[in-house]
């Protein structure tokens, strides 16, 4: 396995972690902080775990986005030299060569490479807000609600773009 292969595996693992586990988990933990008449305080241990969880999510998204941008993306966009006939190492041209999926591929990859950059910002904002208020975030309904709208809009869009890109690339591999 080459260096780029290893990084792509890590990238896929981060994608799965972030979008299938951590994103849903973050929504759940923030909403479960909601104060009720019987529960107005969160135990200190839970607050600590939530903080660690949200900061781990934020760091993972930064690594995934900038690793993707500076390591995977140059490999993906590698230019063809004049007499290249084997497109194996030129994913952009390899998938672009199939007319059935070329347009979808272009749309999905253009979308995910740009919109993904918004996700680490949203994750950092949520982690910071949870850290700042700690156990009292449940009583700060306005702050909690509005920050979650920001987080949800960003992540749902990024997830849609990511899933589209992944499914197009799988389709390309099957073809």
């Amino acid at each position: 396995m080459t260096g780029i292969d290893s990084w792509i595996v890590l990238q896929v693992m981060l994608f799965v972690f972030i979008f299938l586990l951590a994103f849903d988990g973050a929504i759940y933990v923030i909403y479960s902080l909601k104060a009720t008449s019987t529960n107005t305080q969160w135990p200190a241990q839970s607050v600590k775990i939530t903080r660690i969880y949200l900061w781990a999510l934020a760091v993972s998204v930064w690594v995934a986005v900038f690793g993707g941008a500076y390591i995977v993306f140059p490999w993906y966009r590698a230019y063809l030299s004049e007499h290249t006939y084997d497109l194996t190492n030129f994913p952009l041209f390899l998938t672009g060569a199939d007319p059935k999926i070329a347009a979808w591929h272009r749309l999905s990859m253009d979308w995910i490479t740009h919109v993904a950059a918004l996700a680490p910002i949203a994750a950092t904002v949520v982690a910071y807000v949870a850290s700042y208020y700690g156990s009292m975030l449940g009583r700060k309904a306005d702050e909690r609600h509005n920050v979650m709208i920001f987080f949800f809009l960003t992540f749902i869009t990024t997830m849609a773009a990511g899933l589209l890109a992944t499914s197009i690339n799988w389709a390309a591999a099957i073809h």
Partner: protein
Amino acid sequence: LIRAKPPEKLAMMANDMDKPNGPVSAALLAGGIGSAMIGILTLIHETNTNANFVNNMAGSNPVGAPPGESSYGSMAFFLAWAILYFVWKDKEINFTRISSIAVALLMIGLIGTYPPVWHLLGY
């Protein structure tokens, strides 16, 4: 079964509740500014073939524009956060208004990074 909380813990809880929302407003608005910056840079680059400055931000070929847009958007986020934090750290801000502005800025980011919009604007 009901155990009284130690006074220092009660004081900490009271402090948490009393915390001004300025730093949180700063983070959220900065998030909106960073997102809008990414959307605007993407839109400028994708709809204007002469906008090489975004390509040049990336620093190397064949990386192209996206890493440059991400880097500058992230820098805008952290810079805006630092400035707004400094200005608002002890203040109570109208959070509903700030979050509306932040979501509007986020929408600029989301629209600017959506490829069909580039095509509509002449890409």
